[in-house]
């Protein structure tokens, strides 16, 4: 095999056998070490602790346990592992669900082989693989929260993370298809700062998940006392 001590360890999770094997082979040919494949989310959760992948390439719509659920379970067991969502469906809710569950990036299945291999490598390096489609979804999700908070201010929790104007600006440019370098040029920022803004917006989205859960728990507790 092409295993080298520094090769990124990858696990490919997809319920479509031809696709799964094709992706595994393509990644292997490009110097990545495919340590396992799985045909559904539940199998992925079982296998992952044994093979300890650096990156899990995750499909979304799968039997037994979907991509979002598998992402949450794998990240809970293996905090060092990163999940890259690779989905053909562009199911908006599913993509957001996986990102909120902790996925580090999202790539559509129509991406070229080189693009996919690059995305896996970047995910392993700790970057967010964050294309225009995902940027549009994340922007829309924060807007929806803003609007809901304005309509019903009493429901607005303090500490609900919101995007800063700068983060919104960066996300909009990502959604318009600009590369990180182009964005850095246009906003006269460093490339690194642009990457940070993108990462922060993802982190805040994951945080809203936790804030919501906490708020729910508090409400349940208050209800019982009252």
């Amino acid at each position, binding site marked *: 095999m092409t295993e080298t001590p520094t090769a990124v360890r990858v696990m490919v999770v997809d319920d479509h056998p*031809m696709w799964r094997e*094709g992706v595994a082979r393509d990644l292997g040919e490009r110097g990545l070490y495919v340590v396992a494949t799985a045909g559904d989310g539940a199998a992925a959760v079982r296998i992952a602790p044994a093979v300890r992948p650096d990156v899990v390439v995750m499909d979304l719509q799968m039997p037994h346990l979907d991509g979002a659920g598998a992402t949450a379970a794998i990240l809970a067991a293996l905090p060092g592992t990163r999940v890259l969502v690779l989905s053909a469906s562009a*199911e908006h809710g599913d*993509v957001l669900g996986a990102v909120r569950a902790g996925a580090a990036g999202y790539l559509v299945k129509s991406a070229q*082989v080189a693009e996919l291999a690059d995305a896996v490598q970047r995910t392993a390096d700790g970057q967010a693989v964050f*294309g225009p489609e995902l940027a549009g*979804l994340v922007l829309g999700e924060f807007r929806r929260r803003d609007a809901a908070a304005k309509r019903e201010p009493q429901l607005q929790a303090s500490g609900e993370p919101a995007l800063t104007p700068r983060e919104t600006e960066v996300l*909009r440019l990502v959604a318009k298809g*600009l590369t990180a370098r182009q964005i850095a040029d246009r906003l006269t920022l460093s490339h690194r700062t642009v990457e940070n803004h993108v990462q922060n917006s993802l982190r805040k989205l994951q945080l809203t998940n936790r804030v919501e859960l906490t708020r729910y728990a508090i409400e349940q507790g208050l209800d019982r006392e009252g």
Partner: protein
Amino acid sequence: MTGVGAAPVARRGGQGGRGATVDVHASLLPLWRGLVLYRVVALAYAVANVVRFAEAYVRPALGVAVVVFMAAWTLVTSVAYLRGARRLALVDLAVTVGTTMTTVLVDDPARIAAGQPVITTVWSAAAVLAVAVAYGIRPALGAVVVSVAALAFTRQALDAALLSDAQLLLVAGVAVGFASVAMRRSAQRLQEAIATEAAAAERDRLARDIHDGVLQVLALVRRRGPELGDPDLVREAAEQEVSLRRLITRGPPGLDGPDDEPVDLGAAIGATLPSRAVLAVPPEPVDVPGGLARSVVAVVREAAANADAHAGPDCGLWVLLEDDDEAVTVSIRDDGPGIPEGRLEAAREEGHLGVASSIRGRTAELGGTADLVTAPGQGTEWELRFPR
């Protein structure tokens, strides 16, 4: 076991067996049951009538035979009607009319002339009701005419009693015929609703299958593109993949509806863009009135065509759709050479009202604003904002 299971299926008739269909006969079953009940009660009345007046008959034995036949016919028709044999109604009418006319053989002509009831009594109305249930109002009126004619022949008179019978038959025939038509229509509507629902479910199922199979293969072809050495095939696969995915993720855009019908602007824009365009949308549908959606799509199409014309048909094209409480914003960007500063102004001064002013004008007509960001080497970016 089999007997229990078989009975309802048999009653429903031929087409009712497979899943979600509404059987018209089943929907009329309450009327048929009512008819059977009426006929049995009327038969009891006719039997009592014969028992009471048999001594006065010219041919009492024939009278008894007629009533026995009526009982048998009641049994046959009841079973047949409950099993859905509605065509029997016309035979029923002929048999009943014939039975009514045997009165002239059974009874004393003097008694008949004096206005005594015919041997079939009110039982004879059942055939009119059967025609009404089976065929509706107009055939019921025909059955009333036939029945009244038979009564007139039997009684050899056009008196008040006949008129009263005719009125009662008319009212009953029209009322039951109307009920039958209304119930049949509602059953058909229900059938249509179920068919629509089934079509939607089938579409969902197909979408899942397409997602599982065709899309995966198309995506694979596209991804393996460089190795396949057939750029036309790869481009074709890519275009088909994108349009299929847009179709199954957001459904058809539905821009043909009325102006005030809400339309998902994301789906509508997705359907109008070339497949190489990357479309970024919010997670939830951006519903706007159909009229606005049509106008916005027209402006987007013009901006995309403009990108094709100036940056070439292979240029990168990105469209971002944003939605907040006040406005819908559509941004269209290409990575072409861009438009040098002043060229647009120069074109306008020369009197060439180019694409730019057309896009601005259309946007302004909708109460919106259009901003153009462009510079040599930076591509061209339109940001169109339409107030909600």
